[in-house]
């Protein structure tokens, strides 16, 4: 049933970055197949070089990673932590049933050894678990824990919209029953937020029981300072491969420049997200390796299509034609970014060139549409102040719209403010800039259109799109699904609910020689195997 992955995705593959420091790191590691091969080769090298628990090569015992935002919750199913940052932690401390293989785009076994859909409509998933897995507290992993975990998910529409219940067939065997079919459900379950927790532990300690997982790393709660630092200790009883590193500290350094400085002074060994302007600087430092790669995080401009001036499709189109996406990327300085024509970047399947020329930068055309708007030519743009990129984008867009005769006022609010003002049922914004971390599976962009949810920032209630989304999820035939998703793209380009701007690239930088990072364009990196030879 699985699709082939596009070539570009292969380029972003999991990298074990041992060798590429000498040659590869000076170039954007991004987008060619050659680069992909090189990194894969490097990975193989690294694997060969890795000594099997002998002391031939020394490794640093302790590593520190700096995150750009704070981790507020150590529990994978905690409310409100379904984001990249938390994903990175859960990848280290917990395991999921399935592993999404970035290279192949397929689902690999993790805690589940085998699985199959019991019906064509994809509503019953039979799963067999490993029988050699123990939690950090010593309890064995059983089907009970899996059922408990899935039952625990309360506030994640991707699960709750589909998941019904589990039938436990044995200690290590169960069937997951869905309310309606979803081909992508195994993919969804590969997200770190659906990591399996221990039923007994959670029931004994509802506050921190969820921090106990089966992963390589154990949360050391004594060293935990909420929002600031997390101490991890290696789980020597781990069922899989163990890294030579003994302990890891994760700290929160909000400012990108500070992160880089901390890396350069070897206070931390791995950072995520460099300021675009500082990438060259970092590269010029021989002690630092930098890797830049494309992601599936989409920056978009959303209109409030349910009320206000942007109800007028002409205004929306005028804005769409007035925006020069290349300029935006240049202003942000994100050299690895890729212009988004629709929700499917060329890193994803169902990307077609069909829509490439649909909406392009064309001020004249924009002015024509402005003429159709009458007096309705002013727009308030709500911008999240907590991210500089939004500020920059808004400034450039403001200028571009001014050129075609649209006055745009920028309204700065903080994260809570923007959420509160753009709730589906009580939205007050006229337009906003936002970003969404899309997953690589096809149905994921449905989040943008899901009626009644907070991720629907354009407040779209388009019955045709909803219908197409449902049909797409339940459709096993790739070609047919492709048609559904193509139609959704066409509708959006016609109606301009959302203006996809670009897919950002991102960077990690690390102490030269650091190995074992598994990159994922979704940002759900796996750092659990990192180590630094000395």
């Amino acid at each position, binding site marked *: 049933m699985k699709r082939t992955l596009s070539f570009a995705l292969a380029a972003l593959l999991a990298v074990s970055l041992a060798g590429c420091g000498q040659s590869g790191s000076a170039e954007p590691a991004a987008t060619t197949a050659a680069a992909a091969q090189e990194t894969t080769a490097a990975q193989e090298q690294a694997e060969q070089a890795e000594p099997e628990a002998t002391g031939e090569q020394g490794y640093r015992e302790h590593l520190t990673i700096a995150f750009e935002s704070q981790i*507020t919750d150590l529990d994978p199913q*905690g409310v409100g*932590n*379904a984001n990249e940052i938390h994903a990175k932690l859960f990848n280290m401390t917990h395991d999921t049933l399935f592993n999404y293989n970035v290279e192949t785009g397929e689902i690999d076994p993790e805690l589940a050894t085998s699985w199959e859909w019991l019906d064509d409509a994809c509503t019953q998933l039979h799963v067999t678990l490993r029988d050699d897995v123990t939690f950090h507290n010593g309890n064995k992993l059983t089907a009970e824990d899996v059922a408990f975990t899935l039952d625990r998910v309360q*506030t994640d529409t991707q699960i709750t919209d589909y998941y019904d219940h589990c039938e436990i067939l044995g200690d290590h065997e169960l069937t997951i029953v869905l309310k309606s079919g979803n081909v992508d459900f195994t993919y969804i379950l590969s997200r770190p937020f659906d990591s399996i927790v221990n039923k007994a532990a959670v029931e004994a300690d509802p506050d921190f029981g969820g921090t106990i997982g089966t992963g390589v790393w154990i949360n050391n709660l004594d060293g935990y300072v909420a929002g600031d630092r997390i101490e991890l200790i290696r789980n020597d009883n781990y069922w899989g491969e163990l890294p030579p590193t003994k302990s890891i500290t994760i700290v929160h350094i909000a400012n990108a420049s500070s992160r880089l*400085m901390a890396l350069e002074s070897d206070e931390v060994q791995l950072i995520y997200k460099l300021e675009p302007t500082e990438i060259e600087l970092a590269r010029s430092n021989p002690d630092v390796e930098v890797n830049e790669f494309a992601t599936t995080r989409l920056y978009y401009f959303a209109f409030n299509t349910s009320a206000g001036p942007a109800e007028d499709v002409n205004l929306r189109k005028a804005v769409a034609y007035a925006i020069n996406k290349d300029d935006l990327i240049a202003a942000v300085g994100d050299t690895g970014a890729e212009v988004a024509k629709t929700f499917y970047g060329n890193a994803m399947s169902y990307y077609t060139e069909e829509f490439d020329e649909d909406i392009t930068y064309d001020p004249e055309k924009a002015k024509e549409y402005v003429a159709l708007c009458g007096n309705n030519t002013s727009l308030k743009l709500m911008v999240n102040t907590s991210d500089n990129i939004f500020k920059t984008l808004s400034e450039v867009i403001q200028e571009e719209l001014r050129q075609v005769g649209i006055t745009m006022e920028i309204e700065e609010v903080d994260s809570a403010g923007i959420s509160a003002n753009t709730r589906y049922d009580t939205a007050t914004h006229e337009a906003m800039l936002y970003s969404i971390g899309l997953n690589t599976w096809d149905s994921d962009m449905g989040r943008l259109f899901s009626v009644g949810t907070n991720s629907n920032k354009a407040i779209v209630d388009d019955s045709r799109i909803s219908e197409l989304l449902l049909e797409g999820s339940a459709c096993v035939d790739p070609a047919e699904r492709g048609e559904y998703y193509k139609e959704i793209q066409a509708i959006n380009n016609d109606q301009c609910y959302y203006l996809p701007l670009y897919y950002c690239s991102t960077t990690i930088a690390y102490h030269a020689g650091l190995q074992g990072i598994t990159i994922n364009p979704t940002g759900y990196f796996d750092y659990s195997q990192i180590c630094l030879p000395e």
Partner: protein
Amino acid sequence: MHRYIIKRILMLIPVIVGVSLLVFVMMDMAPGTVVDIIGGEMSTEELAELNHQLGYDRSVFYRYFLYMKDLLHGDLGTSFIYKMDVWDLYMQRLPATLELAGASVLLAILLSIPLGIKAATGHGGLTDNVSMVAALLGLSMPNFWLGMMLIVLFSNRLGWLPSYGATDGIKSLILPALTIGTGLMATLTRTTRSSMLDVLRADYLRTARSKGVPEKKVVSKHALKNALIPIITIIGTQLGNAVGGAVVTENVFAWPGVGRLIIDAINQRDTTTVTGCIIMTTVMICVIMMVVDIIYAFVDPRLRAQYASGKTRKRAPKVRGGEAA
């Protein structure tokens, strides 16, 4: 003294009630609630459910009432963001805050008081002029800017000191302590100087000199002890401010202190955390002020007499000299 302390503590209660109400109301006025932060992609129904769970479907006063009921039992509430007791959260951050506050105040005391005395006794001289210009500069520097510049210089360009966090013991304390300490030092030097200048003209110093007390002792014994009250006041206030969290500096240095916690909590509309931390800060400041008052009593027998009669100090002794922002 006991009566005085009890009175002081009783006076704290209305302040706590008022402060927590103020925080609740203000946080309620800010757009969005904690539900908006944690309910990123939830559906309308799920949001409604969460709103109900956390009491956001009722008025702010209802939530305040519930909070106060818990507070009566000594419970500072639970953070919806960090999923922890606010007390535990606060206690996680307090050591770093105290460390930083203590270090910067100590730095200021060790440098500023001798310098201020020197400036006052050599009034109009070189030390006086140089230290006053330096103090004015220190007072005028936005400390986040100073912090950033210090990081660039000492940790990036020179690589001597760590740039973030509280991980490296004394070494990581130096830069943030210096950042906060600069403003403190400036204020304290100015206060010491002007207080000493006031005292140095006092008649009783003339009396002391006429007794043949050596000039050094006139300054260190007779003048200093009298000049101490405003100095102690400033130290107490500054320590109080620092314990409340040197918000900006903590931000610059990614210092795991209370101030950064409160800012993060405000941004995430974590009302219980904000309220709890501010209540704790108020209590801490009250304790510091109580200690300051007790020190006053040691320094000045007149105040000792006042406390003994159970009266609280009416006003802080007059303080001159600019205050750091």
